[in-house]
C-alpha cells in the first residue's frame, strides 16, 4: 500500500521566511560580537603591477587602528587556490586585494587605507582574451594565459564529414559580455579566534568546502576551523570564494579581537564574480529536408584575473551544441583565457546561457534559410528520450556523465517535446498573425522561441541525517545551504513524506560545520536531486527504526503499521492508533537517528532537465526600447516538489536573465582596466516596473531516478531567455542581433543600417 503524499507536491510555505519578513533573520553582516573590529580592503588601482613595498607605519599610528595585513606578512602567502594566495605581491586587475586594515569602526578603517603607502611597479596588461593569447602578451600567471595550456576539445562523429554531407552551412559569431550576478547582499565575513580555534561566519554556498579551503590556506588542522553560514542574501552561483574570510581571520589573529569585513556595493561589482564573457563562433550544416548534419562550436571565454570555476563554465557552454539537437557530428573547442579584468566565476547557468544564446539564435537563422518555421524545426530535430545516436563507449557500469558527449545513452526522462508543444500552445504560436503591422506610435511586435537542455540533478556524494526526538520534533541535518532558492523547503517536504511526519514538525540543521554533515557546495542545481535522494534515504531508514518501536508498542507486525502526516495507522483499521510523537516518547534512547550517503546518478541513463521558452516583445522604432510583453516558460524538471516556490524560481530566473538579454553589461575600460559602471544605476538590472506577464508551465515528467520523481530546476530558467528575446526581436523588426545586451542604442544603430521590414508581411 502506497501512503499518500501529504507534503510533496504541495505549495507549503517557504522555510525560514517568517524570520525574514520581520527582519529577525540575521545575515552575515548583521552578526556582531563584543569587541568586534571592522575591516576594509585596499584594492589595486593598476590592472597589473608588482607590489614593491607597503609602508604601514602611518596607518598603524592612527588611534583605533588595530591591525594591518599586507602581502609581506608571511602568513598571507597561504594558498586559497592553485592561482591565488591570501594576498599576493602581484596585483592582477583593478580592484585586486592588496592590503587590509582592521579598526574600531568602518570609517576609521577607510581612513587608515589612505595612509598605507604602496609602491607599485606597473606591468603590461591585457583585458581582451584574444589579445591575451598572442605570444608577446603580458603573462598573468606563470603557466601562461591559456588556462590549462590547451583548448578543451569535445567531439562526436566528424564535423568535416557532416559539413561535406550538408546542403547548406551557415556560420556566425555571437558575443556575450560579462555581467555581474550582483546579489543584493554584499559579501561579508566575521572571524573570531578562541585560542587556536577559529570560527568564521561568512557568506557561503558550502561550509565544508570553505572550511577545507580556509584550513589549508591558514595552515590549520581542519578540526580547528568552524565555518558558519548565516542566511544568504542570494548566491546565484556566486559567493563560493574565501579570500575575504581568510583576510578577516588573519587580521583578527593580529588584533586579538573579532573582525568583520563587509564588501561595499562597488566592491561587489568590481571584485565579486562576474559571468564569463564569451565569443562563440558557430557553424551548422543541414540537409534541405531540415536534418542537421554537423554543429561546430568554437568558444573563447574570458576568466579574468583568476581561474575560479572557469573550467566548469567553459564545459557548461558546450552542452547545448553537443546535445540539444540530434546530430551525429558535433565538435566543441573551448578556450579559457586569463586577462587583467575582473574575475569571472560561476553565475546561475554557468556557461549555458552564453552557449544557448548562440545556438538558439543560430537555429532560427538556419530554419529561416530552409524556409522552416522555428518551432517546427525544433520539433523535427530536438533530442528525444532515446538520446543521441551512436554506440556508447564509456564502461557500462560507470555512472553516466550528466553532460555526455557520446551517443547511445537514453535519458531517464525527457519532456522537451511537451515543453515545446505546451509552450507554443500557451503563447498561441501557431495562431500568430501572418503579418506584423506597424502599431502606432512606431511599435512592432514579434514572438520568439528557444529551447534548453541542462545538466544538474546528480551532483557529488551527499549525506543527510534525519533524527526524531522524544518530543516528536524531527531534525534534518544537511550540508546544503539555503541560498534563497528554497532548497530547505523541498528537503523538508521530502523528509515529511519519506518519514511520515508533518512538514511543520521538521527543523533543518544546516550551514554550520559543527553540526551539519559533509555536503558538496550548493551548486549546479543539485540540491533537490542529490541532497533530496540522501534525505529520502535517511528518512526512510529512520522510519524503519521507528516502525520497530511502534511494532513493539502496539503488538502488531511492523508491516501492518504505517506513518502518515505525524500519525500512526494500522492497515487493518481506518482510524489512527496514536500520534507519531507518542511512539517517539517510547523510544529507548533520547532520540533515534539515521544517516544516509548517496552517490547520485545512474550507469544507464542521462539525467537532464529541459525547457522551452517563448517571448513576445514590442520594439519602439523611435527610441529603440524593447519591452517584453508576454513570456511563457515551459519546464521539465520532473515532479515539482513545491509548485509555489518552483514557479517563483522560474519567474525569477527568467526576469533575472532578461538583464543579460537587454540591459546588463559590466564594462572594463581597455585602456586602463578600470571597471566603468560598478553600480546598480549603471549596471541596469531588471526592476518591478518592466516585469513582464509571465506564465510558467511544468510538464512534470516523473523522473524514475529522482527523489519523488524530481529533477533540477535552479539554473535552467535563465538559460534560453536571451535567445528567446533575440529571436522575438528578429520576428518584430527583421534584425538578428548577435551581441548582448540588446540595448536601445544597438537597436537604433541596427535600424539605421537596415530599414526595418516586417518579416512576416504577405
Amino acid at each position: 500500500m502506497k501512503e499518500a503524499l501529504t507534503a510533496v507536491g504541495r505549495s507549503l510555505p517557504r522555510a525560514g521566511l517568517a524570520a525574514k519578513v520581520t527582519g529577525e533573520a540575521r545575515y552575515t553582516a548583521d552578526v556582531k560580537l563584543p569587541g568586534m573590529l571592522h575591516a576594509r580592503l585596499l584594492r589595486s588601482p593598476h590592472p597589473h603591477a608588482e607590489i614593491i613595498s607597503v609602508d604601514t607605519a602611518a596607518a598603524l599610528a592612527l588611534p583605533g587602528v588595530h591591525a594591518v595585513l599586507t602581502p609581506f606578512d608571511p602568513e598571507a602567502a597561504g594558498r586559497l587556490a592553485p592561482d591565488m594566495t591570501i594576498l599576493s605581491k602581484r596585483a592582477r586587475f583593478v580592484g585586486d586585494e592588496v592590503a587590509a586594515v582592521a579598526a574600531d569602526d568602518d570609517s576609521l578603517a577607510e581612513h587608515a587605507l589612505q595612509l598605507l603607502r604602496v609602491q607599485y611597479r606597473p606591468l603590461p596588461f591585457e583585458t581582451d582574451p584574444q589579445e591575451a593569447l598572442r605570444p608577446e602578451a603580458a603573462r598573468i600567471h606563470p603557466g601562461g594565459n591559456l588556462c590549462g595550456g590547451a583548448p578543451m576539445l569535445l567531439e562526436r562523429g566528424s564535423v568535416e564529414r557532416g559539413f561535406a554531407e550538408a546542403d547548406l552551412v551557415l556560420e556566425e559569431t555571437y558575443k556575450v559580455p560579462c555581467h555581474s550576478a550582483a546579489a543584493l547582499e554584499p559579501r561579508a565575513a566575521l572571524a573570531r579566534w578562541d585560542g587556536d580555534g577559529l570560527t568564521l561566519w561568512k557568506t557561503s554556498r558550502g561550509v565544508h568546502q570553505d572550511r577545507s579551503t580556509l584550513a589549508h590556506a591558514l595552515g590549520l588542522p581542519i578540526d580547528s576551523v568552524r565555518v558558519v553560514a548565516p542566511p544568504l542574501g542570494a548566491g546565484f552561483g556566486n559567493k563560493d570564494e574565501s579570500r575575504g574570510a581568510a583576510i578577516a581571520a588573519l587580521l583578527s589573529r593580529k588584533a586579538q579581537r573579532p573582525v568583520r569585513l563587509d564588501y561595499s556595493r562597488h566592491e561587489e561589482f568590481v571584485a565579486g564574480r562576474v559571468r564569463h564573457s564569451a565569443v562563440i563562433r558557430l557553424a551548422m550544416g543541414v540537409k534541405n529536408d531540415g536534418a542537421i548534419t554537423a554543429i561546430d562550436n568554437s568558444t573563447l571565454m574570458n576568466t579574468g584575473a583568476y581561474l575560479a570555476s572557469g573550467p566548469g563554465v567553459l564545459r557548461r557552454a558546450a552542452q547545448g551544441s553537443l546535445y540539444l539537437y540530434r546530430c551525429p557530428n558535433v565538435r566543441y573547442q573551448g578556450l579559457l583565457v586569463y586577462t587583467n579584468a575582473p574575475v569571472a566565476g560561476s553565475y546561475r547557468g554557468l556557461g549555458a546561457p552564453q552557449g544557448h544564446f548562440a545556438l538558439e539564435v543560430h537555429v532560427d537563422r538556419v530554419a529561416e534559410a530552409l524556409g522552416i518555421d522555428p518551432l517546427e524545426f525544433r520539433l523535427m530535430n530536438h533530442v528525444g528520450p532515446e538520446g543521441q545516436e551512436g554506440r556508447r563507449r564509456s564502461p557500462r557500469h560507470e555512472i553516466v556523465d550528466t553532460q555526455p558527449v557520446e551517443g547511445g545513452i537514453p535519458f531517464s526522462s525527457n519532456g522537451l517535446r511537451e515543453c515545446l508543444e505546451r509552450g507554443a500552445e500557451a503563447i498561441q504560436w501557431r495562431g500568430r498573425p501572418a503579418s506584423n503591422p506597424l502599431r502606432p506610435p512606431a511599435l512592432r511586435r514579434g514572438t520568439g522561441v528557444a529551447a534548453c537542455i541542462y545538466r544538474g540533478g546528480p551532483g557529488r556524494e551527499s549525506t543527510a541525517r534525519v533524527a526524531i526526538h522524544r518530543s516528536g520534533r524531527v531534525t534534518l541535518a544537511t550540508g546544503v545551504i539555503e541560498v534563497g532558492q528554497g532548497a530547505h523547503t523541498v528537503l523538508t517536504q521530502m523528509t515529511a513524506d519519506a518519514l511520515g511526519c508533518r512538514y511543520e514538525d521538521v527543523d533543518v540543521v544546516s550551514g554550520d560545520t559543527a553540526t551539519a554533515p559533509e555536503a558538496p557546495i550548493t551548486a549546479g542545481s543539485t540540491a533537490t536531486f542529490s541532497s533530496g535522494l540522501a534525505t529520502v534515504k535517511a528518512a526512510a531508514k529512520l522510519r524503519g527504526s521507528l516502525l520497530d518501536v511502534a511494532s513493539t508498542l502496539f503488538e502488531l507486525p511492523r508491516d501492518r503499521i504505517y506513518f502518515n502526516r505525524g500519525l500512526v495507522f494500522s492497515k487493518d483499521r481506518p482510524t489512527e492508533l496514536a500520534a507519531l510523537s507518542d511512539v517517539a516518547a517510547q523510544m529507548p534512547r533520547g532520540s533515534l537517528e539515521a544517516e544516509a550517503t548517496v552517490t547520485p546518478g545512474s550507469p544507464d541513463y542521462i539525467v537532464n532537465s529541459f525547457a522551452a521558452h517563448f517571448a513576445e516583445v514590442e520594439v519602439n522604432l523611435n527610441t529603440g526600447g524593447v519591452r517584453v510583453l508576454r513570456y511563457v516558460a515551459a519546464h521539465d524538471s520532473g515532479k515539482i516538489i513545491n509548485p509555489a516556490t518552483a514557479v517563483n524560481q522560474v519567474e525569477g530566473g527568467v526576469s533575472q536573465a532578461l538583464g543579460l538579454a537587454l540591459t546588463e553589461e559590466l564594462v572594463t575600460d581597455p585602456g586602463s582596466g578600470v571597471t566603468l559602471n560598478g553600480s546598480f544605476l549603471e549596471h541596469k538590472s531588471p526592476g518591478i516596473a518592466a516585469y513582464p506577464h509571465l506564465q510558467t508551465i511544468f510538464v512534470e515528467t516523473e523522473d524514475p531516478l529522482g527523489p519523488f520523481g524530481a529533477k533540477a530546476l535552479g539554473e535552467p530558467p535563465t538559460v534560453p531567455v536571451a535567445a528567446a528575446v533575440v529571436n522575438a526581436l528578429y520576428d518584430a523588426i527583421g534584425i538578428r542581433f548577435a551581441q548582448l545586451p540588446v540595448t536601445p542604442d544597438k537597436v537604433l544603430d541596427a535600424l539605421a543600417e537596415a530599414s526595418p521590414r516586417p518579416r512576416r508581411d504577405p
Partner: protein
Amino acid sequence: MSTAPTQPFTSDVTLTVNGRKRTLTAAHHWTLLHLLREALDLTGTKSGCDRGECGSCTVLLDALPVYSCQVLALQAGGKEVVTIEGVASGPGLHPIQEAFINEDAAQCGFCTPGFIMSAYALLRREPSPTEADVRAALSGNLCRCNAYGRIIQGVLAAAKAMREGAS
C-alpha cells in the same frame, strides 16, 4: 596625505523609532541606516548598496518611505521612524508580512524588509491600489532574485486582507 581628525564630530539626536523615543550621540557623518543598524542594532533594515540605488534600507520617516542610507542621522532628529521591526503592532505579523509568506513573495529575503516598508507606505496612502500602483510604489526597490511577480501578488493580497479586516 590626509590628516583628517580621527575623532569625528558628534551631536546628540532625539528621534522616535518604532514608537519609542531615543536619544543618542551620533557622529555627523552617520546615516540614519548606520544609526539604526549599528547604534540601535535594528538589523532588519538591510544595507544593499549604501548609495541610494537598491531600496533595501527603506524605512518610514514621518510616514514617507525613504532610503535610510540617504538620510543623515541628524536629519532624523525630532522625526518619527518606522522600521521593519515596528511594522507589526503586536506580537503577531502585520497583514503585509502574512501576505508575503502566503504568496511566497520572496526568495533569499534580503530585499524583503525594504519591499515591505515601501508596500506599507503605499497601503497607508492607498488602501485599494491597482497593479500599476503597486509597481510604481515599489519601483525604487530592487530584488535580485527577481521575485517581482510574487511580490506584486503579495501586496495586492495584503491590500485585500487589510480592507476586509477594516470593514
